[in-house]
């Protein structure tokens, strides 16, 4: 099964579970959790079911295309269901079966792994799902986001698509994966990994990034004051990306790290609070 077929099968499975299939978000994010389709929708009381593929950028994970497992951009398949259904673990197991995995021939484990994102004031409780020792999914019951207690609770299922595909193809090297019949992961991604690793680690202009961070932060605050919460949130995502780039350039000390993350979180928390208030009004 190629990566492309994996996408299709997961889309198919989760759309049959009643999920709305969202397009990938068009900003740089570190994880599928960061996009508005998750962040805003887990707040408040309205039910929500969504599934989407999200390219996720983690500049410090880049390895110039030389490491067979680590890349600075990977793809996540993100599912959010609110409220979390009672049989959600069973549904998840069914999704693996739908991929043609015969679970009785493998060792599948839900291994304690709570999740936390200080940047968006969020945390949850759950597991990393291990299949024959390989982490293929993060499974989380969201408890808090934007600094707010969540009720009802959403469940988030995040498949690491490359990991899962390496398992399905029994490959040791990410670049050997087949994207579609005759296009490999290497064909599509190798040059990108190499160039972005150079950019992330060596070339990114830290002064420009620092300035951009400050500008985006200021803009986000201005937009919050204008009650333009979705645009404000976009600017927080940009802050977060600039922060990640600064980090990969080694330009952030430990104390500064705490300070910058705190700045973003404070914006995000304001957005969450206002959003819930306004949703309550309507």
């Amino acid at each position, binding site marked *: 099964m190629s990566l492309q077929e994996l996408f299709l099968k997961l889309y198919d499975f989760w759309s049959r579970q009643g999920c709305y299939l969202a397009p990938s978000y068009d900003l740089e994010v570190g994880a599928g959790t960061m996009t508005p389709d998750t962040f805003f929708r887990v707040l408040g009381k309205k039910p929500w079911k969504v599934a989407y593929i999200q390219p996720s950028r983690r500049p410090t994970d880049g390895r110039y295309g030389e*490491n067979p497992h680590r890349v600075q951009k990977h793809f996540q398949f993100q599912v959010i269901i609110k409220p979390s259904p009672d049989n959600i673990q069973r549904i998840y197991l069914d999704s693996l079966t739908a991929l043609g995995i015969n679970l*009785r021939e493998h*060792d599948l484990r839900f291994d*304690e792994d709570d999740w936390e994102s200080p940047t968006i004031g969020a945390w949850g*409780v759950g597991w990393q799902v291990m299949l*024959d*020792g390989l982490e293929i999914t993060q499974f989380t019951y969201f*408890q808090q986001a934007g600094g707010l207690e969540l009720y009802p*609770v959403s469940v988030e299922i995040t498949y690491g698509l490359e990991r899962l595909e390496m398992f399905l193809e029994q490959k040791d090297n990410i670049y050997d994966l087949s994207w579609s019949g005759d296009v490999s992961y290497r064909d599509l991604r190798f040059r990108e990994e190499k160039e972005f690793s150079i950019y992330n680690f060596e070339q990114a202009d830290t002064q420009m990034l620092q300035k951009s961070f400050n500008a985006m932060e200021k803009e986000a605050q201005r937009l919050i004051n204008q009650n333009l919460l979705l645009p404000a949130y976009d600017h927080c995502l940009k802050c977060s990306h600039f922060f990640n780039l600064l980090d990969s350039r080694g330009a952030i000390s430990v104390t500064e790290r705490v300070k910058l993350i705190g700045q973003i979180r404070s914006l995000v928390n304001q957005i969450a609070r206002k959003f819930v208030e306004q949703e309550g009004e309507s």
Partner: protein
Amino acid sequence: MEFLLELMTEELPSSHVRSALSQLEEKFIQELQSARIGIRSLKTLGTCRRLVVTADLEAGQPDEEEVVTGPPKQVAVQADGTFTASAFGFAKAQGLTVDQLEVIKTAKGEYLGFKRLKKGKPTAEVIQERLPFILSSLSFPKNMRWGEKTFRFSRPIKNLLCLFDGRVIPLEFEGLESSNLTYGHFIHAPEPLRVLGFEDYLHLLREHFVLIDPEERKQIILKQFGEKLSLLKAEVYPDEGLLTRLLWNVEFPLVIMGGFPEKYLELPLEVLSTAMREGQKLFSVVKDKKQLPYFLGIADAPSDPRGFIASGNERVLKARLEDARFFWGNDLKTRLSDRVPLLNSVVFQEKLGSYAEKVERLQKLVAYLADRLELRNEKKDLIEAARLCKADLLTDMVREFPELQGKMGGLYSRQQGWSETVSRAIYEHYLPVSLDDPVPESMAGAVLSIADKIDTIVGVFGVGISISGSSDPFGLRRYGLAICKIVMEKKFHISLQRLLDKAISLVADRINMSEAELKKACLEFFEGRVRYILEKQGYSYDLINAALGPGIEFLEQTTARIKALSELKQSKNFEQFILMVKRIKNILKEPPRARLNSALLKEKEEKELYSALKIIKKNVEGMLARGDFSSAQRMIFRLQAPLNSFFDRVLVMAEDRKIRNNRLALLNQILALTNEMADYSHIVVESESR
């Protein structure tokens, strides 16, 4: 009669299962006892998906005679013995006739009333009432909510089986209806199973790939470890923590074995075993303490029919080892000493500055300790180790596997040619990580460990961070315990007071309180740690208070002191002596107003007491200086005879004020001497507690 409870959940963390089971056992026993239900036996079992209690209980509460009192006798019975209207009213309300009433004597007086037999409640009814309370009172380090529920638990709850004597005890708990159903292994036999009783439950689960008894799972794992390794004549690199954790994570354990390319064997065992343990939770295989290119893992499956489990784990491990090998090679390219200046940019704590500054302080602290402990040969190496000990924080390996901090510094420094003393000290300086962890083997490691921890303790307290309850962000309690443990086990003769003075002087420019205030806080903190250690060792609180009476300047003496006390507690003089000390302390509630003047000693008994005191004091002081607390205590006991005669024949509270004060001063000297040994007045003796 047989009771069986099974609460199924989504996968609980291993530590949560263990804690929940011990809470369940405790709470069940408590509730059943308070309900007067006899318990013949009770035990808990479980996996990460099931909390199980099984018990053999009496069928119900015993019947009980109940006394029902009505109106006072005065009101209900007239002088001639006839009943009043109030007696008739009471009898009628109770469905009785007046001649069935009798006079009942109570503490408040005589009443008219009657006795009746109260039927005990059936056990099932008691459990039905109390089980929801027991289950919802389970506490976990971290709780969650799910779906639209407000109820909190460690993980979502799925199913409740509750049987007494083969019948379902009907009850509802947070949306679950109790039944006689359970489910088999979540992948291999997820179907519902109808349970008749405990034996049936065990049997059904076993057939459906669940072994509910943790001990059985452990034995199976150990047996399969042995089978896998017998051909290699190798052993599992022991990791009790990992084994315990996995034991609860699987319902049907299967040991799998895999290998990895030999080229990774160039990595040290610490790195290999960490790479295996973290993430994949695999065990290393060793022979003669050397790593072999194999690993063992524990799967939750009846078999690995196509070898996918082993080969999948092999593939993942290879990727991790490849990373580790890259880090090892890359890290070695930079000498540790070249990393030291870069510690300037690594913050230790905002107000305490960088690790570079910490390392400066550590060099001074180890020099001080080396002088105190007369470690002339090691002093130079110790200072070098202190300089280098945090440099590994900047290596790729420690960034990837933070738990290897210290160890990597030790391994890299050895590879890069530093002396064995230096690399050993660095390697061991985080030890002991917990109270059960061994202390550093080497002297240099022990000294560096103490220096590192005392610096953190005084610094963190000094900038105004305090610990309370569960809030201890720097793990200061753990550090405090580690220092006590090292000093006690290594029998280091170091004055805690002076060590604190030294450590505090090094952070003096950073702290926001007076040095005296900080020292007081630190001493209180250490007293708490010593108390905790002694409690863990099983000493009773009164002995601990007594042993801590003279202060905790030399920690290694506190242990010797309490040991001596506890030995002597068995001796027959002990109790009399303690009572005597308490008597003296009582008499001396107000301190004497004069110093002892031997010329004023008049009676034979007080003269004898004084001369005994002089001799005993001299002996005791010598013994204390040698740290021989047993002999010192025995010596102090010799005061008893002259004290007895003194109290028998001499009136302390003499009319003459001078004489009285002089006698009080004599007693005061005796108390002062006993206080040097222990504050005996804390000790509870039997004749008092009766």
